[in-house]
């Protein structure tokens, strides 16, 4: 035992708790650990990572990032999630990008303007080229746009209200025309990545080149590992890093181990629990930004007439039972903010409509006033839909129990079954714990997706859990074709006020985007869309 204690003493300064933990483990593991040290002794002590090498002076160096999901390809036609944007944009670029203020910024385009209510005119920059020095042409844009819409059930195309018609004006200029005004086209086009036309296909590209600051040196989509190297032919400001290694690790704990042990330099989208633990480490820094993902406990709007949940007063009353301050401080380590409206407040077009309050006495009296007693509710959510989902749901059982509501929990395992439940085809439920992402930075994208339901859409169960209120839909439709920004925001505000008064959610919140990096990584700026520009990242030492 004494040898082992010595080993523990020389170990890197773990916290007091983990030291104690180790000693406990050794007590239990006993024989097997003795065996363990024998075998590891043969293997010999290893210096911690393969990644901490790299050049020292000024620019250069290697960076290793570990994502939380497998990046199946460096293309986004089918799939796009927050952190993927960081890597995808390092290789391929779009006409625009969503800036840190969530407004569109120009990248490959020099000009992107609304020249009539339904026509946008775009001019490409003169100096842009791919990593093989060939120029980026308007034909490349035309092909890219066409192919994104050809992919079946593509992710990016589904964000567009309609497919814009492309028309070439001259070698650098073209127009995009829509049937109805699409006032957010400049934001939407930030998701169409441009590739040489002859190499582009109506599927996710596994290889090929782009115009971004990095090129792909090696890729293995099966294990989700990619090695990017600096594009020395980049048309803009060249990347500071020599090399970026991308891998993934779904298990949060394993990512935390990877960064504490020096195997990884950056891990993104971390949970509040890991954030708290990582805060204590000396060589690790946290970067925190308010996010754009809304998570809510959404009511089922498909309940038969007469069910208590069809009454907005009952929905409101239930929201007073949620002790969100305790949830935030105990289960989310303060890394989320309670919603103040129906969309995240970071989004452009957000209107503050009110806040959630905790008042169990009021909840009880309101429920009594509405004649509701012995209410039984079923909560559903997909396993790990959001950080600490199961813990939040289990805590809610107690909170609602305190106001006399009996809650049954149903955690739906991964595998897509949740979708059948959400469409109301698998069984009855009352409240859904669900996250709603946003890739455009615009409130209207969320509002259209969730609250613009119509009776026709409900026939095929394509509304957001049965939320169909025609006056809300009308306002949103008006807003989406209103070219004047001031008027548009006024319409959106009106719609958001109306939605809030309907109490669609028992509680809603927006988690902060939290990223952990080793201190050697500098100049990393996390944007609210939970991505960052790899080309600006620098490492030292």
């Amino acid at each position, binding site marked *: 035992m004494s040898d082992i204690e010595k080993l523990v003493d020389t170990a890197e300064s773990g916290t007091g708790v983990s030291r104690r933990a180790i000693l406990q483990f050794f007590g239990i593991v006993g024989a097997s650990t003795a065996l363990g040290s024998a075998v590891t002794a043969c293997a010999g002590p290893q210096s911690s990572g393969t990644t901490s090498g790299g050049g020292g002076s000024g620019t250069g160096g290697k960076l290793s990032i570990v994502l939380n999901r497998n990046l199946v390809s460096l293309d986004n036609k089918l799939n796009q999630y927050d952190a993927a944007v960081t890597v995808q944009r390092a290789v391929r670029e779009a006409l625009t990008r969503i800036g840190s203020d969530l407004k569109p910024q120009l990248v490959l385009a020099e000009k992107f303007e609304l020249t009539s209510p339904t026509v946008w005119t775009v001019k490409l920059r003169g100096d842009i080229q791919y990593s093989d020095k060939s120029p980026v042409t308007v034909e490349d844009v035309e092909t890219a746009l066409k192919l994104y819409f050809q992919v079946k059930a593509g992710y990016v195309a589904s964000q567009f209200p309609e497919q814009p018609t492309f028309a070439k004006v001259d070698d650098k200029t073209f127009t995009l025309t829509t049937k109805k005004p699409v006032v957010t086209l400049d934001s939407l086009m930030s998701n169409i990545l441009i590739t040489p036309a002859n190499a582009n296909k109506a599927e996710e590209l596994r290889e090929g080149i782009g115009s971004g600051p990095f090129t792909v040196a090696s890729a293995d989509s099966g294990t989700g590992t990619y090695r990017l190297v600096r594009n020395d032919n980049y048309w803009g400001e060249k990347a500071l890093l020599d090399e970026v290694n991308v891998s993934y690790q779904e298990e949060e704990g394993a990512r935390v181990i990877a960064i504490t042990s020096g195997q990884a330099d950056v891990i993104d989208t971390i949970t509040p629990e890991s954030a708290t633990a990582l805060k204590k480490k000396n060589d690790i820094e946290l970067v925190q930004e308010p996010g754009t993902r809304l998570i809510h406990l959404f009511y089922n709007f498909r309940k038969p007439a007469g069910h208590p949940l069809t009454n907005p007063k009952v929905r409101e009353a239930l929201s007073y039972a949620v002790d969100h301050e305790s949830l935030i401080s105990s289960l989310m380590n303060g890394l989320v903010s309670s919603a103040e409206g129906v969309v995240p407040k970071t989004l452009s077009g957000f209107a503050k409509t009110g806040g959630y309050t905790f008042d169990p006495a009021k909840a009880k009296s309101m429920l009594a006033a509405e004649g509701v007693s012995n209410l039984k509710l079923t909560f559903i959510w997909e396993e790990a839909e959001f950080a600490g989902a199961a813990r939040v749901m289990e805590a809610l059982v*107690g909170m609602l129990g305190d106001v006399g509501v009996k809650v049954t929990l149903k955690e739906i395992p991964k595998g897509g079954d949740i979708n059948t439940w959400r469409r109301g085809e698998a069984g009855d439920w009352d409240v859904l714990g669900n996250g709603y992402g946003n890739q455009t930075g615009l409130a209207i994208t969320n509002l259209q997706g969730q609250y613009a339901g119509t009776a026709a859409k409900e026939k095929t169960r394509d509304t957001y859990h049965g939320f169909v209120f025609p006056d809300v839909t009308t306002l949103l439709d008006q807003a989406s074709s209103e070219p004047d920004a001031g008027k548009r925001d006024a319409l959106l505000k009106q719609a958001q006020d109306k939605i809030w008064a309907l109490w669609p959610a028992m509680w809603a919140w927006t988690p902060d985007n939290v990223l952990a990096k080793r201190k050697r990584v500098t100049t990393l700026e996390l944007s609210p869309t939970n991505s960052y520009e790899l080309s600006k990242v620098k490492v030292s030492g």
Partner: protein
Amino acid sequence: MTDAAVPSNVGRRLLRRSAAARKARYSTIKIWLGAICAGIVIIPVALARVLPLPDPVHGVLKETSLPPFSPGHLLGTDPNGRDLLSRILHGGQTSLLIGLLAIALSGVLGIAAGAAAGYFGGWVDTIVSRLLEAQLSLPLLLMLLLVVALFGPSVPVITLVIAIAQWPEPARLTRALVLVEREKPYVAAAQVLGLGRIKIIVRHIIPNILSQSLVVVFLLLAQAVLLESALSFLGAGVQRPYPTWGGIISDGRELFVTGAWWLVTIPGIAIALLVLGVNLLGDGLRDRVRRAKAVTG
């Protein structure tokens, strides 16, 4: 081993040091050690509802993630502020219930199938033996996960799944034992007396092999508890918010690396202690049963 039977030059001391005596003594040590290990876990679990414990399901959020030896919470709390001791003991009831039901089921199934295969031979034996072989080469854990996904995670489904995973072991042993028994004179005697074949198996053969088979079935309890925790670990556990051992560990694993070590270690110790106890007890009993067989047989 009475004094009268001892020849004069072999004293008691020498006898006590003989291999047979030592073997007997060691099996007693194993049985006692096993009983103590298992008892440390099983007795509090059985008394969970009687003991003055906080509610295992409803916690106090303010008492989030307290380490062990905090006032009022001997083993600490989880992030929801629920007492870990209470959760382990209440969870143990579910885990043990699943384990006991599963071994009862697999025991009955295995002994019946094994006895039938051994006694009847022919096509009955072929079917049972092929099934046993096939199950060996299947990716068992994956199939179990799929079955749990198919029928939903509930106590009966998980029990059934574990029973299916475990029936081969008693079946194989019973078959082997019955193959030997059926050649013995008492079976021939029973046949001459005109007893039905089922009656011979149930009334005559099975009682003779039951003790050995039951020890194997008892040892399966250890496997059942481990399998339940493995299934929970891979996400096929009993419905929330009711705890099981595997479920507690599975929930705690993301917090394990972040400092809340007790959420994984302590339920892990509970599982290991119980399984160790059952294994030691079963091992000791097996030695005894074998010896008893050797003496009478």
